[in-house]
């Protein structure tokens, strides 16, 4: 399996999805080697997975580590600055930082061979994707496997390359497309990677029908090649959180949790906040996350004159996420285009009712949630006010939502992926 990110090194839903999916797959008895294009620094390792420091891929098997939680899963990493949500111009900064951190390591840990690696870093993302592909091929030659499963555009080239070298079938998993991330202003290079990957793949897994439609209409792929497999959620919330009701707090909290980028619709969140504040005063809007629109969004809050009511927390993880859910009265996801959206499931799992845009894949599977068009700021505000004002609404949403979300299991997603694997393996044999 070729991926971008894996907990605890995550910046979005993709890592969470890969984690949940691989965990469920290993329960089904599938053996997975997970190749990450991520550089892992020893300094900030979290504790719930047993990580080993990656070494050079040309070296011994130091780059391999196994998790304690997931059997049958082997994770291998390639030092690379690829980041799932990076844009071309952030890449340069990233390179510099890696070089800097390498130097730190060199002085601290003294591993000489790392020095030579610097020469391998290419100067732009395009070359980097190819470098990752080449490295993945080398790694793949040391492994035995039956299917290649590549997650999102940065790994498609690697997937195609590994498939060409090994002759094994390629499944690509589309968690997001360039049209979701950038609207109509697509990056042609990324689009080309995506399109090439989709056409080379033996089978495509899309996270929703919304995404499947984009794949069909924008990438010219034929419909029978694309299977929809919805994401799942791990049951980790407290589940009994109805206890929150009755605790009177002076202030209500409305939560935005996600990357602050064009795709996630932060300006619609603020637009709705402005309208809500015309009617209700004792409410605070929390924006948890970071992203390229962060600065503009902070400015917008000030422009709208609601700066004192909007709080920016930056990117949250782990315990902080749990805490913010505990305080929240409503989670709002006004995404302009959301292929799936795991975050609302996590909110429901934590007994927070959710309001999601109709332009999201997750709205295909959830019924016990509030929905609005992302552009309909008036309606979003109307629904936010209703949740804050009518306690039975919040209660019913929690009760049914929490029940509904339990039916979305990674086990089912893993089972469907397994079916897709069997299909492509059989087809490969027939040919």
């Amino acid at each position: 399996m070729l991926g971008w990110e894996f907990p605890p090194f995550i910046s979005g839903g993709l890592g969470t999805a890969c984690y949940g999916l691989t965990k469920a797959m290993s329960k089904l008895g599938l053996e997975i080697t997970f190749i990450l294009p991520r550089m892992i620094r020893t300094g900030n390792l979290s504790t719930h997975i047993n990580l080993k420091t990656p070494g050079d891929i040309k070296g011994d098997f130091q780059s391999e580590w196994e998790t304690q939680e997931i059997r049958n899963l082997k994770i291998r990493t390639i030092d690379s600055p690829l980041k799932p949500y990076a844009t071309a111009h952030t890449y340069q900064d990233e390179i510099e930082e890696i070089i800097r951190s390498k130097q730190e390591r060199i002085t601290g840990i003294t591993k000489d061979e790392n020095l030579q690696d610097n020469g391998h870093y290419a100067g732009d993302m395009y070359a980097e994707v190819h470098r990752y592909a080449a490295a993945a091929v080398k790694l793949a030659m040391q492994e035995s496997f039956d299917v290649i499963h590549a997650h999102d555009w940065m790994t498609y080239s690697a997937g195609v390359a590994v498939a060409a070298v090994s002759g094994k079938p390629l499944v690509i998993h589309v968690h997001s497309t360039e049209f979701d991330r950038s609207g109509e202003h697509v990056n042609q290079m990324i689009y080309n990677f995506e399109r090439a990957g989709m056409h080379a793949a033996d089978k495509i897994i899309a996270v929703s029908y919304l995404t499947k439609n984009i794949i069909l209409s924008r990438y010219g792929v034929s419909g029978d090649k694309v299977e929809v497999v919805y994401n799942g959620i791990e049951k980790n919330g407290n589940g009994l959180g109805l206890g929150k009701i009755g605790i009177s707090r002076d202030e209500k909290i409305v939560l935005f949790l996600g990357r602050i980028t064009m795709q996630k619709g932060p300006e619609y969140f603020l637009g709705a906040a402005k309208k809500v504040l015309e009617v209700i005063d004792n409410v605070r809007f929390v924006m948890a996350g970071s992203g390229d629109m962060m600065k503009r969004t902070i400015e917008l809050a000030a422009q709208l004159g609601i700066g004192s009511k909007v709080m920016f927390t930056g990117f949250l993880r782990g315990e902080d996420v749990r805490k913010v859910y505990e305080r929240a009265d409503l989670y709002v996801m006004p995404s302009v285009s959301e292929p799936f959206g795991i975050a609302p499931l996590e909110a429901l799992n934590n007994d927070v009712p959710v309001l999601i845009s109709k332009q999201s894949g997750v709205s295909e599977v959830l019924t016990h949630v509030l929905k609005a068009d992302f552009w309909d700021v008036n309606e979003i505000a109307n629904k936010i006010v209703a949740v804050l004002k009518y306690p039975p609404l919040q209660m019913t949403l929690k009760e049914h939502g929490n029940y509904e979300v339990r039916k979305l299991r990674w086990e089912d997603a893993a089972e469907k992926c397994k079916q897709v694997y069997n299909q492509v393996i059989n087809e490969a044999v027939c040919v």
Partner: protein
Amino acid sequence: MPSICFYFQVHQPFRLRHYTVFDQDHRYFDDFKNKSICQKVANKCYLPANRVILDLIRKHEGKFKVAYSITGVLLEQLADYAPEVMSTFDALARTGCVEFIAETYYHSLSFLYSRGEFRDQIFKHMDAIETLFGQRPKVFRNTELIYSNDLAAELESMGIFDGVITEGADRILWGRSPNFLYKPPREGKIKILLKNYALSDDIAFRFSNRGWNEWPLKAEKFTNWVNQINGNGYVVNLFMDYETFGEHQWADTGIFDFLRHLPEEILRHPDNSFKTPSEAIASYPATDIVDVPGLISWADTERDVSAWLGNAMQSNALHEIYRMEQTVKKTGDKTLLADWRKLQTSDHFYYMCTKWFSDGDVHKYFNPYDSPYDSYINFMNIMNNMEKRCGKKPRGRKKSVETEQAANSII
């Protein structure tokens, strides 16, 4: 020798318009939608079905009879949007073969929340029926056939009814037949007519179902089933929504042909007859007592009130609307009172039902909202506006503090 008692429920609610917390006017109803639905149903169902029934009554020279309960909220809409339907009902009334049944004018759940309001709405309905069709109802049916011992006692104490219609639910019959007349535990003159749900639902729900092993249902076959009852019952009560004809079962399913041929087939057997509810009550004795301590209805598979009172939103919305009763009445504002009453129509609470997974299809079909949550939000926003119209601030409840602030900031 069984009699057939046909009784049709005829109803359309005043659907609400999309009303947000930012709206401040007093237009709560979606006139455009109500008009178009009313006219659509009139053309697909009310007009053609009335024509068929009228023809049948004439053809069988008084041997074919039916009963209707037309809600006040529909009568108002018909008068505005489809007056031609009113004249065909008037023609039916003049045949002397049609009985009109009483119910709450607003098709409300008032029996459960306010006995005063309950009685007011019954009288309003009976007055309307008498004015329009020249007969004062003697038999009562409660909204959605909701019934309990308490309802029978309430009707008895009103002293104006001979009988009441409700569902022949299994859990009140304990194996007895719905084809007899029954009486409530407490002594009185009221008799109970129970819906034969098996035969009624064969027409109302299963008629066009191609997966049903009895499909296609023809008048001959149905008459056979009725004749099998011979000797084990007095009257087969076929109660259903009038919209069954042409709206729930479209014309191309053959439902009108079925209706057209049924009386002829039934009357072929000399012992068979058609009776109106009042005639059935006059003709046959009550054979036994049915004890109904809890509420029953004709809805869903549960035959209870969970379709209107199944979740916190529904009970909250109902509680809120009846809490306002005195406040609304004290204003003496007639438009306000009428609006408040139209909001009591049970459909508004039905739309908030979250039991989607077992009864999903039926609920969705009748629901103008995308979700039960949307319908609750809409309803509560209107409640809030209405409360402001009463000129009184919401009292007591803690959660209303914000409402108050909202009211202040808007004013």
